[in-house]
């Protein structure tokens, strides 16, 4: 997928002007925030669970090597295979080689953000394989030739009418006069079309929400059951997971499942939670003949021990995205790579470089709503600020901005000079807006006055007036100047 993060501003302007997109984006605010709040309110121990979840993940990250090692041993013991991939390219090649080794031509695929990082579909298709996304949102996106705009609701930017048009265009084998104007009929059609794909698939690929070290299991949660069909009906099951997904025990899993569903969709529990351990055993009624796990690093181990380590606690619930006013305004594609919203603005610079993703940590008001809902208590604003520090150190932010800041700081660090200068400056500003107390134009603040008036100052500064008051009271307290 082409990285367009450097064009964030342009992407955002286009998104703001796109009325269809703006209509679709309303669903994020309407569909997630209230439901999450209700679910949280209904669980008295939710805050304690957040602490617990954070602590388990923090512990895990400190001993990641140990848990990954244990995980691999358990997978192997249950008859599966673990493949280590340092880069996205490595991971793609591993998947391709597995597919080739079993002579696979067609595959079904459950939702996996890692596969977006890998651009797996394009890679496999180049090798002549047919990949079908089985998550409804992902399937829609695939038909449209797009990328997900949200980590748990990949097609949230698409309206129902657009889906109908896409289905009519893609499913030409069906009656052109069929009724498709409500969500249920759309769902029914997708289900019928996908059903055939499941049975035909040689390989089923899924992501993983968690990997459990003590049992060597991979865990997926879905609301559509597509993950189960994907992984049980094909001969070979390939799990794609990044290294930070590992947790110690099945007991810990319980903590995360409760946090994840409530934070993501406001459900107490996702509809399907599937725990897979190894390939089909002799006594199992069904299941794949082969079970492979591709463990992807792709820059994550380099985040360990840095200011950004805490980001690896993320369980991809999307709550920070759902509550982000910037995301609500510009949608997911504006961010220009796989991960949008606050979590993406921290993660993307880590994974593709801050030189490319430099806009993302800056395009935030640091309002803190993300951190306030993050089940893993990830201090997202703090980490956005860390990125800004890196950019500042490396002189990556625009020169006029740096000079503006430096000039202002020069005065702010010299109180006496500052007060004198500002006295004059405020008088001048007031003089420029004598009738209205508003300024339509302001040098170096065109960004502000493009959409807003600038309220003019009252006139004298507080310090000036205070000095006058003190003088008339015959006091000089606190007046060190």
């Amino acid at each position, binding site marked *: 997928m082409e990285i367009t993060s450097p064009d964030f501003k342009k992407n955002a302007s286009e998104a703001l002007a796109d009325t269809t997109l703006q209509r679709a984006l309303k669903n994020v605010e309407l569909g997630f925030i209230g439901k999450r709040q209700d679910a949280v309110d209904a669980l008295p121990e939710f805050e304690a669970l957040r602490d617990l979840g954070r602590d388990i993940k923090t512990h895990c990250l400190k001993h990641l090597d140990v848990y990954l090692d244990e995980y691999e041993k358990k997978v192997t013991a249950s008859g599966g295979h673990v493949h280590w991939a340092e880069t996205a390219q490595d991971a793609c090649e591993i998947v391709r080689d597995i597919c080739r080794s079993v002579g696979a031509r067609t595959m079904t695929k459950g939702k996996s953000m890692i596969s977006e990082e890998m651009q797996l579909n394009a890679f496999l298709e180049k090798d002549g394989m047919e990949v079908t996304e089985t998550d409804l949102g992902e399937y829609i996106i695939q038909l449209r030739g797009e990328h997900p705009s949200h980590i748990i609701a990949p097609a949230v930017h698409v309206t129902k009418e657009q889906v109908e048009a896409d289905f009519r265009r893609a499913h030409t084998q069906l009656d052109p006069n069929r009724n498709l104007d409500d969500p249920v009929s759309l769902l029914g059609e997708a289900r019928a079309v996908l059903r055939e794909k499941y049975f035909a698939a040689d390989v089923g690929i899924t992501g993983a929400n968690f990997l459990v070290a003590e049992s060597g299991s991979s865990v997926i949660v879905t609301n559509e059951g597509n993950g189960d069909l994907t992984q049980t009906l094909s001969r070979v099951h390939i799990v794609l997971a990044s290294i930070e997904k590992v947790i110690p025990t099945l007991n810990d899993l319980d903590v995360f499942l409760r946090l994840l569903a409530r934070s993501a969709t406001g459900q107490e529990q996702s509809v399907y939670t599937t725990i897979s351990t190894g390939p089909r055993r002799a006594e199992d009624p069904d299941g794949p003949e082969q079970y492979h796990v591709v463990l992807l690093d792709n820059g994550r181990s380099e985040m360990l021990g840095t200011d950004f380590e805490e980001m690896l606690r993320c369980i991809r619930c999307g709550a920070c995205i759902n509550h982000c006013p910037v995301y609500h305004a510009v949608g997911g594609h504006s961010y220009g790579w796989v991960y949008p919203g606050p979590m993406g603005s921290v993660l993307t610079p880590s994974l593709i470089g801050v030189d490319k993703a430099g806009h993302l940590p800056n395009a935030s008001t640091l309002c803190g709503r993300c951190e306030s809902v993050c089940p893993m208590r990830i201090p997202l604003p703090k980490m956005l600020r860390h990125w800004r520090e890196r950019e500042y150190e490396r002189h990556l932010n625009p020169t006029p901005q740096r000079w503006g800041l430096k000039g202002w700081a020069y005065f702010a660090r010299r109180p006496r000079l500052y007060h004198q200068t500002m006295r004059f400056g405020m008088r001048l500003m007031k003089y420029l807006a004598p009738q209205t107390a508003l300024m339509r134009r302001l040098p170096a603040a065109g960004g502000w006055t493009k959409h807003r*008036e600038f309220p003019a100052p009252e006139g004298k500064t507080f310090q000036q007036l205070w000095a006058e008051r003190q003088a008339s009271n015959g006091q000089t307290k606190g007046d060190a100047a």
Partner: protein
Amino acid sequence: MNFASPTPKDTKGKRVGLFVTCLVDLFRPTVGFAAVKLLEDAGFELEVPRDQTCCGQPAYNSGDKDDAKALAKQVIKAFEGYDYIVAPSGSCTGMIRKHYPSLLADEPEWADRAVAVAGKTYELVSFLVDIAGIEKVSSHFTGTVTYHDSCSGLRELGIKDQPRKLLASVPGVDLKEMKDSDVCCGFGGTFSVKYPDISNAIVSKKTKTITDAGAGTLLAGDMGCLMNMAGKLKRDGSAIQVRHIAEVLADMADGPAIGEKSGR
């Protein structure tokens, strides 16, 4: 985070240093005088150190740690001698309380001083309620108001009930809550200038909920947010008046509202 209010303490003879904040100093001195009145009415001995400019937040949020540290030290030096430091802004208070300690953590000379100053710095309205134990103010105001919860005050300092409590004590104030009062107004400091179109989209949603609330006056506790919302309301030709909450609490809401013709 635990935002439980500390029990009101004996405030007699306590010295308060007023951190005016740069925006109040430059653009709206009235708010500074409202703060002075409220604090003096509460019985504090009040001083305004002259060696103050800005808390350093613009530098801090722009990644310029050196200037942020220099300004933090300037504030610490000017204010560490007071019993309390009070600012009419949740955002500047958040900077001092929540960020100075980590900013200066690895400077042995300053780390403890930063923590000490952080521990006694308060936002004005929450200070009056939580520390000074004020239950009502002597003010009057006639009209409907709506209140925006500025982000730092709300999420870094837990300020939500205190302003509503004091507003309720002002005879004549009719509070009409806006929808999503806890959602950002889109200001974000330099964000508003660096990403004007996004900032505009966010503030437009905000001014819609403000307008829908049907109140004649919009109040909040932070000048940055107030100037942003006032600037948008004025551009849209709205008649809604915009004021800092301290003006209403201190009975100083007679003068021109923010962005209206000033007589001073």
